[in-house]
């Protein structure tokens, strides 16, 4: 159809021109949205998707960093993993620390947000204060808390002593170490989540509260019957992000055990991330990748369960 036509009639030329404009317009409408979102997806492919796929590839090999040969072992790493008691130990620890830190954290965050969501002196001051623990370096937080939880000279045991109780070796026991680590996580994230809740609460129409107050509903009832149902999408969001965060806890247990990659001598508080890190530091990348993938699956499952639970939570207004 390559027509070179200096003598082409004007009408034809005009029609072609119109067609081209139409084509450009259609292209603009249909394609440019993709162009606008492309940067994210390109970056995501490079830094999200590719590593994910590559990790899956590595996990099928016996792969150490120091050797250039990578032997294909199929699902071998996964088979070893499923019968590895240390892996299951890490999984249980992760879930336990996750529940211990997330549940009280979110309840506390909602309550704090509720307190701040009313006329209050120096409101900005309180809101900034809430966020302060989150901007502190995690290392600083854990170092300070590890001292507070010290067995011989820790502040907490000193207070327990004043109350006539026996000192607790926080980092020796399973439950006690999980509590200590959960408190560190809560310290950092409660205020942050409270601010997110607060933002959502401020979008709840005032009239609802006024009407409820006129009807004689207490503050707690208002929280339960109005606030929580109204901000449920935000709660779902926060539950999902907190779950993901809780599944990936690394710095707290690592530093709490003063750089012990086993998370205590009996692996009392070795989380999944720390378990990955242990094998990573041994340069056993194949196995570490397999664990990473299992962790990814666990996160998807945990998030899915939490999503369903929070979405179906009782008490609806809308």
């Amino acid at each position, binding site marked *: 159809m390559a027509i070179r036509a200096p003598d082409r009639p004007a009408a034809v030329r005009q029609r072609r021109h119109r067609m081209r404009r139409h084509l450009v317009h259609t292209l603009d409408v249909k394609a440019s949205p993709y162009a606008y979102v492309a940067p994210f997806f390109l970056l995501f492919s490079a830094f999200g998707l590719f590593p994910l796929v590559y990790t899956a590839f590595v996990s099928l090999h016996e792969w*150490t*960093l*120091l050797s250039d040969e990578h032997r294909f072992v199929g699902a071998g790493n996964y088979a070893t993993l499923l019968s590895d008691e240390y892996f299951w130990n890490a999984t249980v620890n992760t879930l336990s620390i996750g529940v211990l830190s997330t549940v009280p954290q979110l309840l506390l965050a909602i309550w704090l947000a509720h307190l701040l969501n009313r006329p209050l002196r120096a409101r900005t001051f309180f809101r900034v204060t809430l966020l302060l623990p989150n901007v502190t370096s995690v290392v600083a937080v854990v*170092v300070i808390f*590890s*001292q507070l939880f*010290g*067995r*011989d*000279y820790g502040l907490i045991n000193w207070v327990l002593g004043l109350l006539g109780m026996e000192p607790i*070796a926080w980092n*020796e026991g399973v439950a006690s170490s999980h509590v200590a680590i959960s408190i560190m996580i809560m310290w950092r994230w409660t205020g942050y989540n409270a601010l997110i809740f607060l933002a959502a609460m401020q979008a709840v129409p005032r009239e609802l509260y006024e009407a409820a107050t006129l009807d004689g509903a207490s503050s707690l009832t208002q929280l339960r019957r109005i606030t929580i149902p109204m901000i449920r999408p935000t709660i779902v969001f926060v539950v999902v992000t907190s779950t993901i965060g809780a599944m990936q806890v690394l710095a707290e247990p690592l530093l709490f055990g*003063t*750089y012990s*990659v*086993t998370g205590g*001598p*009996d692996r009392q508080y070795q989380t999944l991330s720390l378990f990955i890190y242990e094998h990573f*530091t*041994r*340069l*056993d990348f194949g196995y570490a990748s397999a664990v990473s993938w299992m962790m990814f699956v666990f996160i998807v499952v945990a998030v899915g369960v939490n999503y369903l639970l929070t979405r179906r939570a009782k008490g609806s207004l809308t």
Partner: protein
Amino acid sequence: MGKLRPRVVAPVLAAVLATGVAACGGAEGSKQAASGAPAEKITLTVALFSDFHFAPLYEEFKKTHPNVEIVERRAQFNDHHRNLTTQLATGSGAADVVAVEAGYIATFTPMADRFHDLNQYGLARRQADYLDWKWKQGLSPDGARLLGLGTDVGGLAMCYRTDLFKKAGLPTDREEVSELWPTWEAYLEAGKRFMAAKVPGAAWFDGPGENFRAMVDQAPVGYYDERNNLVAATNPDVKKAFDLSVRMIQAGLSAKLAAFSPPWNTGLTKGSFATVICPSWKTGSIKDAAPTTAGKWDVAAVPGGGGGNQGGTHLMLPKQGKHPKEAAELIDLLTRKETQLRLFTEAGALPSIPALYDDPAITGFKNPFFNDAPTGKIFTDAAKALRPQHVGPKAGDVLTAFGNALQRVEQGKQAPEAAWEQALKDLERIK
């Protein structure tokens, strides 16, 4: 406030003196620098795992190499070595000069092609200076390449708190204390006597791991045989050390503190334990960690009759470094005789140059922090008696497995036999 003055004057004086010394010592270096083309500005990074007290030496080096900037970075011990492994494997991020401790040296020397061969920078001439075994630790497995120069070695002694010994009615004189524990069995018995006196807040030693390590270090063979086979599970000396450590735990002698953790530092200051195994360099660690306990310490012979080496370091140049010539000159300075002499008195780093063991400046050295104990004499004697052991490639991981096992016993989580079995299972995972 007037009192502050001498304190200010002293470092200034020291700095001036150091400059003078540097000017004399650096003549050879400056000639080399002068002969080269007008030098470009370069930066050398030095990666260490603690304070090696190198700072004045950098200044000295810069006198002869005005174009060189030196940046030191430090990381926690385990992290430092893990980082180095990763940096070597990925081929980026390693410092120009890296410190590698004895527990890890055999991990890195097999990767000979990832380090500069120091023979090419004229450092082979240093061989005559060194303890033979220390020199050999820095060679590639085939012996053809020189990969690291030694700084210090870790001859063993036992540090103890005279104030706590006195309270418990034990002798405090270092000769008599040494006679208390000719063997580790006797050390255990002495510990029982100490605990029977019920000195408030004080246990006999910090934690079982370090004593276990010392006992194994004193044996002719440790975790690996000469051909790098892991023999920890079958070596009777390892089991013996483990069992004795368990008995010490069961006798309630341990303060349950992991060495070098923050609570351990607090324990040093507060006197939570009466004895602590002291490789030479640890006298420096104790002084740095618990400066307020000056004069309360003393140093006696190690139980089990000398022998072992614990720790000590090599300086190596990763191949990634772009300025091997300057870096080689730097480590030459950081390890030479004068430096090692100075670092012994300043930081307790026992020289790896045997000629210094008869140098009166060292043999006559008394450590004021340790109640004027003649640490010069004690540690050079230990160094002369030292029978070095072959260190295998994953010695660090092996030690962690046994250390964890002992801690499990200590924390009452496992019976000794079960802990031993689990440690052996953990060893099987160490490839």
